[in-house]
């Protein structure tokens, strides 16, 4: 074997090794990104504190397109908007459990609930709520109805609800249900009744 061939083969070896290393680097980067995203989505803030109180949740089920009422006990803060937030977080918590009949995106959370004097409530959700929400007319409608009916059931002074995402208005929840509008509690209550 001539010196020239050995040199060429060595060069090939170096190129092949470099390509192999690059492929390994890409694989590691993708895996790392996915893991980081998963961890970010699982970071849900700690539950609220306060005396235990019984609240009513309107729970959706995709399979039979229904809403059902369920009473649960949770720690409830004294302030109204904090109460609304705690109740919605309990609702989201139920949906985030594995095996939920109405799953929502991992990491979905309520950042804040703003209550206005005219009975309006603005629910500020995080990005994961909308970005990872299952897409579909029925699935999105059930989520919105469940949120509005739950808020109204626990605080009848809330008469209309708007959902925003990460502090900003969004056109649709996950491509279907309109998020630009306020949802009237009485309008939704009629639908909730039909879905029971």
């Amino acid at each position, binding site marked *: 074997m001539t010196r020239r061939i050995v040199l060429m083969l060595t060069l090939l070896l170096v190129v*092949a090794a470099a390509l192999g290393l690059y492929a390994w680097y890409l694989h590691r980067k993708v895996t790392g990104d996915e893991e980081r995203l998963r961890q970010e989505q699982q970071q849900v803030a700690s539950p609220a504190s306060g005396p235990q109180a019984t609240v009513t949740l309107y729970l959706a089920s995709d399979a039979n397109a229904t809403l059902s009422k369920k009473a649960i006990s949770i720690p409830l803060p004294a302030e109204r908007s904090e109460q609304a937030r705690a109740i919605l977080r309990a609702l989201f918590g139920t949906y985030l459990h594995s095996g939920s009949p109405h799953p929502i995106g991992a990491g979905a959370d309520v950042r804040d609930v703003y209550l206005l004097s005219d009975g309006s409530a603005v629910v500020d959700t995080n990005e994961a709520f909308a970005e990872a929400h299952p897409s579909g007319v029925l699935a999105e409608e059930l989520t919105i109805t469940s949120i509005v009916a739950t808020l109204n059931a626990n605080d009848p002074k809330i008469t209309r609800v708007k959902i925003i995402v990460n502090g900003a208005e969004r056109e649709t929840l996950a491509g279907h*249900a309109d998020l630009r509008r306020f949802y009237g509690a009485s309008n939704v209550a009629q639908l909730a009744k039909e879905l029971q």
Partner: protein
Amino acid sequence: MALSRPGRIAVASMLLAFAGFLTFRSTQQASLVFAQGSSPGLIAVFSPQSVYTVPVLQVGAQPYVGLMDLLEPLGSIETRINGKKLKLHFSSAGTRQQEGDFQEGKDNGKIGGDKFKLGANFVLQNGRGYVPLSSVPELLSRLGVKPVEYRPTSQRLLIGNVSERYTAELKKGTPSRLLLGFPAPVNPTIATEPGRVRLTFKRDPVVAPTDRVKYDDPLITGTTFSEHNGIAELEITGTAPLMANFADGGRTIIVTAAPGPPPTQAVQQLPVPAPQAATALPQPAPQPPPRPRFLVVIDPAHGGDDIGAAITPQLPEKDVVLALARRVQHELQAKGVAASLLRTGDYAISLDQRAISINAARPALYIVLHAANTGNGVHVFTEMLPPENTAAGGLLPWDTAQAAFSDLSGSVAGSIAAELESRKLPNATLPAPLRPMNNVAAPAVAVEIAPPSGDIADIASANYQTAVAQSIAAGVAAVRSKLPEVTP
């Protein structure tokens, strides 16, 4: 066989180099996917059934088209993918079902058991099969769709003798008139510039007897026919401003001198008779006032980058609803109901653009189609707007325009649900907060299909979609007399 040390190094190097090459090749293959979307282009397909466009994707230097995009509007197609192999079953009206087999990376396949040369490798990407554009005419013929005429310069595919060859006759006079005759009514857009009129045919399969004609006339000097990007253009040149008028119900276009500028006040006061030229101006046939008609606009939701729900990783909602929309259109037309699609290919339309197009079409009924992988059966939705906005009459608020049509929309939804029930398809009727439905000033329903049973893939099955489409069409036909016809 024992190898010397340099020999072992050489073998190891070659193995590593081969591994590197495979890594490089896989990266290259992945990059093809992105290259496809970079400069899509379109071919326009004109068939007796419909006029539609198909995106052209660049794979390397070769233009490709999607099998589903191409074949779906022409008949019934079902595909099954098994690893690198794609099997399709296709049938169009009046032809027997044909079976095709293709394999990723192979430049030949089989149609009806016979070998078929593609000319370049078959591409399978994200559950969709792509064939070279050059193979399309032969592919269609082998599948029983013929005759096929592909006009590469214009990227127009004419199927089934649909081409409309026009005639041009110059009537000399003062002023001269050029009469363009078409075998069927045409609807080009007309643009005028000083000394020329340009007719652009986007939806008419117009072809020319001769590309360039010169006239020995003081007014009209010639015509030039050209084709590009799926459209045909006919330019008429002259020595003075020209205008074009329709006659004979759109079968004739008359090109002649445009009227001159309005006379000045001083000229108007002169008691002179009307010039002879004015009497020679063509009098276009009086157009009858538009008649009310019953049109259903079908909106396959989503499209382009907006894929909607991922029914499966390989099956986006946008594709499922486009196939369903074509079936609904077919079933409605079979019942004598005029129906048009808001989206005929894979492109994005914003919610506001959709609403504008729908309201401009002035339909008697709007049906938007969705698909989901949660739940099962069919859900029929009507608007979910506050009752205080339901007053009709006068100008309608954009955000709640649909509220004025609540009762009629409810009748349609109920009728469709009854038809679904009669076909034993699980269904429910609900209100839903949906745009652009809320912005539509016409009766409107949304239909969302979920898999009929446990198998999600069944959502795209021909049997299921046909049953749903027949239910929708029968439901619409049953309440047609209740819905007002609309003057366009």
